[in-house]
């Protein structure tokens, strides 16, 4: 499915729970302009892109290309940490056959799943991750670690990554 710049802006805006009016106000443009961007009728001015990307919580490259850069593991100071209930655990599987699977799970749901005794292969569907301890991942996140926390390459050539944001 082709994802255009307009669709990306729209999706990211909704994820941030912002209205078109909010974006318009922050960028000092009209709400109609934002609507036109999202409907791919026009494109944002190049000078607005860095600020728009910052508002949407991505880099300018990510906004334009749609490819999310996997940031390295980062330790976020306590005052800048997001509430764990609003964080996402992204499981990315790139199989050797060329299949790509992306699962985005809220951390709160992962916590509940863990309390139920679920293990990583049941969440991700990949046996490659059977030795990954979810408790340890949660503990890392509680201590402020975000980014690409796990990367595993199986003998079959499958690559599985666990990313927290």
């Amino acid at each position, binding site marked *: *499915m082709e994802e255009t710049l307009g669709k990306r802006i729209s999706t990211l805006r909704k994820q941030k729970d912002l209205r078109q009016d909010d974006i318009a106000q922050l960028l000092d443009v009209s709400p109609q302009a934002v609507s036109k961007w999202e409907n791919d009728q026009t494109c944002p001015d190049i000078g607005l892109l860095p600020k728009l990307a910052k508002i949407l919580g991505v880099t300018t490259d990510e906004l334009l290309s749609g490819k999310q850069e996997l940031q390295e593991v980062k330790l976020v100071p306590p005052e800048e940490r997001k509430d764990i209930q*609003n964080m996402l655990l992204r499981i990315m599987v790139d199989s050797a056959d*060329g*299949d790509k699977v*992306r*699962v*985005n799970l809220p951390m*709160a*749901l992962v916590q509940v799943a863990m309390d139920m005794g679920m293990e990583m292969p049941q969440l991700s569907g990949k046996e490659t991750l059977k030795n990954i301890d979810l408790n340890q991942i949660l503990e890392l996140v509680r201590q402020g670690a975000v980014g690409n926390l796990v990367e595993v390459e199986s003998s079959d050539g499958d690559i599985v990554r666990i990313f927290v944001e």
Partner: protein
Amino acid sequence: MKILVKENGGPTIRLIFPSGLVLNFVSASFLPKCLEEQGIHITREQARVFIKELNRFRKRHKDWKLVEVRDAKGDYVEIRL
């Protein structure tokens, strides 16, 4: 809930229906039995918490993409809540 199925070179199927139809306490009561077949044992109360948490996140993060699968042949499936 939006389910998009795109077959490479074929038709695109879009299914849109209220998430509440799937994520409710009635479906939560079926969840323990379904998970039992996968070797996961949960109680009804845990299933209720699970569904409640899914709904809470869905309401806070609109258009949340739960799963995205693209196979080597170019077929694509996406589920948004």
